């Protein structure tokens, strides 16, 4: 959040001098994501390898209503489906299976309890865990939230899966009412400590709203559905960028001399 803002300023200055990497994959669409949101390290080596090699790859997605795509009206319009489409386009040879396990209004605790039953049997290479909203809305103890996620990450890592965390949505209306701050910070800390990439949806959507790219306010239900579909498409594509971000880094890691 805030430190990232200044980091952005510093980055923006620095980027003028640096070659911009992987431009080919960045979104030419009307919802571009600034470079600062992609900064993570280390990369998702296994996922990247699987994508590049064309083996079968299972990506499991945990989350709530926004991952289920309820506002858009159809699961095929939800961001995991859009992610699958975007990845398929980029890696035509890969057999990519994105399994959407989201349940509306599911808290992290309930999602964590499902890991061994619903997630691990799929043998996912990558698990994307969208969470935090219910906790912020219900005022769950932040320490408990952190412990729940930590246990979940440990379990997933233990099974050999790679993990990406995704934080809450941003909206002008809710931000003054729901105190997201502590939960956003907790997820950032978790990501840092576990070297897990964090897809900062809250920041990205805030950026879109800020730069007037995706204004999500409308009273017309039909228009709202279209907007939701567009938003999820943007998120899905941004997530594809985010995940394949590792392609460049992963390739570099896989180059001779620096294997592993």
């Amino acid at each position, binding site marked *: 959040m805030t*430190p990232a*803002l*200044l980091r952005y300023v510093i980055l923006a200055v620095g980027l003028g001098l640096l070659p911009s990497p992987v431009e080919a994959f960045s979104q030419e669409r009307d919802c571009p994501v600034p470079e600062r949101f992609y900064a993570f390290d280390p990369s998702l080596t296994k996922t990247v390898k699987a994508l590049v090699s064309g083996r079968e790859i299972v990506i499991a997605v945990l989350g709530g*209503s926004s991952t289920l795509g309820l506002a858009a009206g159809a699961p095929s319009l939800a961001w995991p489906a859009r992610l699958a489409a975007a990845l398929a386009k980029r890696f035509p040879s890969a057999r990519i299976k994105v399994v959407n396990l989201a349940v509306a209004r599911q808290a992290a605790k309930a999602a964590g309890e499902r890991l061994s039953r619903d997630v691990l049997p799929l043998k996912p290479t990558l698990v994307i865990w969208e969470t935090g909203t219910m906790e912020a809305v219900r005022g769950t103890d932040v320490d408990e939230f952190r412990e729940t996620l930590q246990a979940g990450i440990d379990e997933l890592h233990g099974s050999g899966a790679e993990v990406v965390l995704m934080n809450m949505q941003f*909206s002008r*209306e809710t931000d003054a009412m729901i105190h*997201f701050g502590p939960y956003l910070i907790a997820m950032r800390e978790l990501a840092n400590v576990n070297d897990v990439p964090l897809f900062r949806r809250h920041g990205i959507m805030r950026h879109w709203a*800020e730069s007037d790219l995706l204004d999500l306010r409308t*009273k017309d239900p039909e228009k709202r559905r279209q907007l939701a579909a567009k938003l999820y498409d943007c998120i899905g594509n941004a997530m594809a960028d985010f995940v394949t971000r590792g392609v460049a880094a992963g390739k570099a890691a896989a180059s001779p001399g620096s294997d592993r």
Partner: protein
Amino acid sequence: MFRRRLKECVGASQHDRVVVPRQGKAAAELVAVERSDWKEVVSIVSSPSAMARDLRLDFFRGLALFCIFIDHLPTNIMAEFTLQSVMLSDAAEVFILISGYTAGMVYGRAMEREGFVIAGVRVYHRVWQLYVAHVFLFMMFLALVAYTAGALNNSLYAEEFGAANFLNEPGLAVVEALTLQFQPAFMNILPLYIVLLAILPFVLAGFRAWPRLIIFASLALWLAAQFDKRIALAAYPGPDGVWPFNPFAWQALFLLGVWLGWRGTKGGVPWLRDRWLFCVAAGLSLAGFLVRFSGTLHGFYDPIPVLFSGRVSWLFLSKTDLGLFRFANVLAVALLVARLIHPQARFLASRAAWPFVICGRNSLHIFCLGILLSLLGHLVLNEFFGGIPMQFAVSAAGIAIMIGVAALMEWFGAAQAASGSRALGAPTAGRGARG
């Protein structure tokens, strides 16, 4: 002549606050002198330790209030420059510790002089004020919800935020707010303070008999709350909701403050002057500074590593349960400040410190105003965005409003005091009758 005038002063102060002006400025205040002989009061008032107000309390409470406001604004770059970026604890700890100290001092003295019942009633009068302030803030929150609810129902987030029960059952939400179970947005420090103040009379009474036992029990409860998650208060809307500030843990900080303030009225605590303790406190403060500041710098420049981060640190840095390091850090910094800064240091009386001091002196009002302003700040920042300049502008405007209101209150208080002391010249018949 002088004696007669003093007698009048003391007589009036038995049911009113009397300010003794000197060269047009308020030089001393007479409060809580019921049942005291006027000669005794005069001797209290003329003793320098009782006269001089500890400006450090006002100054640092003011500082904490500004920090709380700034920290509450969303994605605010200014929050990188508040107390939380230089110490492991943040403004909340400072606020609670100073509030405890002040309460221990003021009500401790009142209890010595007036006994348990009167002093207890005084405390509960304050509790009532805090409660009313809390309810007032809740009304403001409801107004905000009413303002944005329409937009919310039409938004993409309607489903997710439909889980925010207060939208569906506003009646229950109001009841839960009145019982302090519902603490939306930033309305969580006041409920903590209310609960802590409510136990104060019993704590003070206990201090007179068994001070060590009380402190020991308080620390034991804090320790238990660290390890047993069940030692918490449930909050609405559940099922896993807890008070964001666990009273069972935070009482330890407040009670230590109360104890220090109470002992302060009796000549202080000798071992706090120990040189080794000072060194330990300096070490702890420095360590806290390095850890937190490394985190702050890391945010600005990635290659700088964050010291002491990781799973172990979470147990010790819990804000809800006042983790060990947060607790120790605020005590260490408080000791350093107490030792290094004189209560009437020239700086504290200077123009630069004045905005902090007046805000700290009117802390309840300015605190509530700060919460209100942070709610409005959210609206402004999320409506107009505007990046860092806007964040700076909103922060500065909010603080200016806080200072302005505090200045107004000071001015009003002084004006009232001045007219009050003029009225003293011709005491009315009704005045003496009630004393």
